[in-house]
Structure formats: structure tokens, C-alpha cells
């Protein structure tokens, strides 16, 4: 479904990703963990097409297509959704208008008919229940004046309406208290499906108690230095990121070998 091969990327000529390899199959949940500055968020943003990052090498294939050749909006319409670490406030654009523009762009791209106002509202209201969002949020400007928890719930709402094939959650747990975390995780879990995959980027293991991953990868200095099952996350929680340095040396040796 998603195949990343030796992906390298930099920002302002500073290399951030130094060779990422990752294979995500339909229905899988992959957690990407790692200390600050390891490149987790860069990976998420490069996959979504943020132009601030320059891809300097490697390939990303998405359902057999060259993902890196697609504009951000094309990636979204092809089923990739990035839940932002810092959702952007857009004064003057209402949530409902954004959802409508986004959903219609996708339906049009897929050659399907746009939803009429009635069906659209019915769909949105049903999905709002997933994240326990009150109706008046629909008519407020996108993320404007929202609390941290409300912004993250809004990301999950957008994901629920757009029904992507791959959801990338960029530190969706950051800044959330335990109640908000549960609401967000429940929303994500409700969206899990055999043909829908997730890449969950997080610093802490806590989120993975609620969104249980199939695979856990540890990222350090722009490389995946260790991969394993969900127990790897617990290991990391217990031992901290200190022992990563050793792994890195090992990975470095491998790379030189």
C-alpha cells in the first residue's frame, strides 16, 4: 500500500531524514516513536507533501503510484490524510465550508457525484458524534479559538468525513489530557478498517495504550534504528530513549558495512 525506500529529506539544506525504509500494508497500524528532533514529524509532513521540506533521495510508492510526484491536494484526494500536530487556525473559513470543499474535491477526483446539502450535513453530524463534538463547532471558523483538545478532535472529525486509506497522526496526543486523549483515540479506533492503515507518530507510549499498533519503529537521527511489535513501545517507556544511542551506533555500523 505504502512503500518507502531509502527516503532522505532536508530543510534549509540540513538533512533530517537520512534513509527511511517502511512498508505499510492495508489495515495495519504503525507507530513511529523517537526522541525530539529524530525526524518523526518531518516524515509525516513529507508524506503529506509539505513544500518546506526538500526530498533529496529515495522513493515513496502509494498504491503503485509515485507519491512524491503528487501535489498535496492530490495526495489527499488519493486517500492520504495528515492529522496536524499544530492544526492551523483559519479565521473567516467555517469548519463546515472546509469540510464541504474538501469532501467535494475528493468526490470529484474519484469521479463521483458531490453530496447535496442534506446528505452532506447528515454525514457530518453523524461523524461528529464519533469525537463528541457539539454542533456549533461546524459553524465556527476552522480551529479559531479552539482549545488544544478541540483542535485535535477537529482533525479526527475531518478524517472521519474524508475517510482516507492512510491516516497519519502527527503527535496527535501532544497537549491532550487523558479525557481528550481517550476521545481522540476512540475516534481513530472507530475508523479502523481492513483497508485503512494508520501511521501514528508519537513521542510517548501513552497513546499506544489506546491505539494499539501492529508495528513499532524507533526513529533516531533520521533513520529507523529498531522495529518490533507493540511490546517495543513498552520497552521504550521503561528504558527511555537513552539506549537509542547504542542502537544508533549499531545502525551506523550497519550502514557502513
Amino acid at each position, binding site marked *: 500500500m505504502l512503500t518507502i525506500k531509502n527516503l532522505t529529506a532536508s530543510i534549509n539544506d540540513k538533512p533530517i531524514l537520512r534513509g527511511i525504509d517502511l512498508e505499510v500494508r492495508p489495515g495495519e497500524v504503525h507507530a513511529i516513536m523517537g526522541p525530539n528532533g529524530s525526524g518523526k514529524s518531518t516524515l509525516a509532513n513529507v508524506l503529506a507533501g509539505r513544500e518546506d521540506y526538500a526530498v533529496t533521495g529515495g522513493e515513496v510508492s502509494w498504491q503503485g503510484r509515485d507519491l512524491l510526484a503528487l501535489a498535496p491536494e492530490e495526495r489527499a484526494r488519493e486517500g492520504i490524510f495528515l492529522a496536524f500536530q499544530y492544526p492551523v487556525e483559519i479565521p473567516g473559513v467555517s469548519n463546515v465550508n472546509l469540510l464541504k470543499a474538501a*469532501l467535494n*474535491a475528493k468526490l470529484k477526483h474519484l469521479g463521483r457525484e458531490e453530496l447535496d446539502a442534506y446528505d452532506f450535513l447528515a454525514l457530518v453530524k453523524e461523524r461528529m458524534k464519533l469525537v463528541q463534538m457539539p454542533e456549533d463547532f461546524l459553524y465556527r471558523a476552522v480551529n479559531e479559538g479552539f482549545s488544544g483538545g478541540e483542535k485535535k478532535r477537529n482533525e479526527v472529525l475531518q478524517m472521519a468525513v474524508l475517510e482516507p486509506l492512510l491516516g497519519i497522526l502527527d503527535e496527535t496526543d501532544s497537549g491532550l489530557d487523558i479525557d481528550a486523549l481517550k476521545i481522540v483515540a476512540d475516534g481513530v479506533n472507530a475508523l479502523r478498517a481492513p483497508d485503512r492503515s494508520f501511521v501514528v507518530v508519537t513521542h510517548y507510549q501513552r497513546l499506544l495504550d489506546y491505539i494499539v499498533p501492529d508495528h513499532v519503529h524507533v526513529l533516531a537521527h533520521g533513520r529507523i534504528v529498531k522495529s518490533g511489535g507493540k511490546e517495543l513501545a513498552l520497552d521504550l517507556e521503561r528504558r527511555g530513549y537513552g539506549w537509542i544511542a547504542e542502537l544508533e551506533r549499531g545502525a551506523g555500523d550497519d550502514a557502513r558495512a
Partner: protein
Amino acid sequence: MTATGNAAIHYLEQFREQRPELPGREPAWLDGLRREALEHLATAGLPTPRDEAWKYTNVSSIAAQAFTPAAPGAAVPDRALLESLLEPGLGGPRLVFVNGRYLPELSSPPALGGGVRVRPLAAALAEGGESLRPHLAWPPGDGSGFTALNTAFMADGACIELAPGARLEEPLHLVFVGGEDVLASPRNLIIAGAESSATVVEEYVGPEGGRYLTNTHTRISLEEKAQLVHYRLNRESLRAFHMGELRIRQAAGSRFVSTAVALGGLISRTEVRVDFSGEGAETRLNGLYVASGRQHTDHHLHIDHRLPGCTSEQFFKGVLDGAARGVFSGRVVVHPDAQHTDARQSNKSLLLSRNAEMDARPQLEIYADDVKCAHGATVGQLDGDALFYLRARGVGEAEARHLLIHAFVGDVLDRIPLPPLRQALERLLWARLDRREAAGA
């Protein structure tokens, strides 16, 4: 001799030729007024960037062209063209002026009665116009060279008189059409008696590609508790020049709400001057400007708070693209006796290109101590993070820009409570912005 000096001589010559044709040789006071204004124009010339109030708006290209002051019987564009320029109409009463002169065939003035009197100024002057004299007064040296030029050549315009308590029920639409190479000098008067109310839309249009100069002057007098909602829509030809002045005098408890929308003109400037002559009066000046290519658009506002308890607000926003230049100069003076003044001023501009430029000068001078005043100005670009956020949701780049620009101007449009005008404006605005987007400017 400078260009502006030459221009003054040109207009002096024109005046000599046209004087017999101008209304108001009788009464003598009007003729005297014109000659004083011309005298001033001949000495002072048209403004130059050395004048502080014209520092950012260079009109030498206007001065360099010899426009012919519109004479009676000057060529009028053909009927089909005129009718196309008058679209979209508002459906209510309308006065149409071509080259500054009233055109009855295309006009439908409001019914007389109920204390409402709407006439072409030329007709009012032909009847003597003694009651209008104070409203046409030109104190020596008043305003700029353009004020003097308008005073010298004013011949026609809308003259709207409301008796105390009178109401003009439907919005009154004034349309001014410019013609090739012509100087049009409309002079409008709105004289609103105590507790009267009206809505007036001043619209300026011209044939696409037409090169002409509109030099218009509107004076508004609001007696106690009178209310006027005023719109000023500039959609002149993109090669035309537009100089406009709006002077408002407000008695106690009166309310003036104005929205100025500037889309047209190669060089356009609107000057608004508000004087309160009574306590507790309120004035709200909203504005929206959109300019692209080499357009230059200037709003110059001056509000004097001399009396206590008056409220003023300036709320201006603009979108600039290409090599367009915008100027906002908003001056509010709160004099020592003007306690309990509430004065707010806001100017925000969105630059869509690297070559666009905005000069924002909000100026608040406060000499009273018990007042509420605030001002702010921002100049920025489309938010790159917001643009990416929308694109990451599948919204195409052009549509994402559209959404963000719409969001930016939305709160000015929200201040237009007249649905047909608002809808017409939205269409015009997007026609302008989309043309720009399509050209990739």
C-alpha cells in the same frame, strides 16, 4: 513650468471657453465661487508629492493629460454600451449621469412627496439655488487643486433634500458614467433634515479601456438624529483616473454609515472628511480596495472630534496584486473638549504578489483624557500554513487561495446589509480577483 502648473493653465483656458455654458452665471455668487476656485488652482496647481497629504499618490500623469471638461451635448456613449455599464442595477430609483451630466432617459427618480426631493443639481441651480448656497460654499484655499477644479467646473450631480422626519424608503442609486478624454466634475449634495433617513449608492463606471478623469465631490449634511447609509462603488475603467471627495457634517445624534469599495481606476483616490457639529453623533467608514497590474488606490480619511460623546470607526481592508500600490491614510483628531470619544481605526491589507506595495498610515491624535481609542494596521501575505492545511485536505491550490481571500474580505462584505448590492459586489469582486488568478499575475 511644472506639469501641474500647465494643467492649471489648460483648465483656465477651458473655463474661459465654457463659462457661458456653465449653469449659475446667474446667480452671481456661483460665478464668483468658480472664479475664486480657478484663481486658487492657477496659483497652487494640482497637488504634488511635496504636499504631505499627497506624499504617496503622484498625480503628475493626470496633470500631464489635457482632459476636456464635459460640456453640455458632449458625446454620449451609445445606448447599448450605457445599458451594459449600468448592469447590475439595484432595481430601485436611479439617477444616471454621463460625463457628470444628468441623463433623464435612463433615470427613474424616486416619487416626489413625503418630504423627499431629488433633483439634478443643474435643475436646482437653474431655479436660483439660493438655499443650496451654504452647501456649495468654497472657503478660500479649501482642499486640494482637485477640490478647486471641481468647484470651477461643477455643473450637475444629484441634489437630494430630505425634510425633517422624511424617509427615502428604497436605496437611491446614483450612477456616473465616464467618457473618453473627458473631465467629469459631478457635484452631489445630500441634505438630510432632523430625524430623516436614506440609503444612497454612488457608483462610478466607465467603458472598459476608457481613459478619462472623474473628479467628483459629494457633500453631506446630517441634521439632528438624521441617518444616512452611504455606499461608494468605484468600478471605473482600469485606464481611467478617479479623484473623489466626500465631506460630511453631522449634527447631534446623527448617524452616518459608509462603505467605499474601490475596484477600478488606474489612479484612484477617495478623500473623506467628517466634522461633528453636535454631540453623540456616530460615523462608521468601511472600505474595501482591490488593485492589480499598475493600479494605484488611495483612501485618505480625516475625522475631527471636537465635541464630546461622538463615535467614529474606520474599517478598511484591501487586496493588492501585481505591481499595485495601495495607500491608507486615516487621521483621527480628538480635540481637548471631545471627552467620551470612541474612535477606532483598523486597516488590513493582503499582498498577493512580491511587487505589490501598501503604505498604511493610521494616525490617532488625542488631546482629551477620557476617551476610548484604538488603532491598528497590518500588511501581510496569504498564510502559507493555512494554504498547506487546506491543500492537505484535498482543496486545490486555486480554490484554497480563493477561500482565504474570501475569508479576508468577508468581514467588510458582512457590513453591507443591502443584499442586492452585496451580491453584485461579490460577483464584481470575484470577477476581478479571478481574472487576476487566471492571468497568474
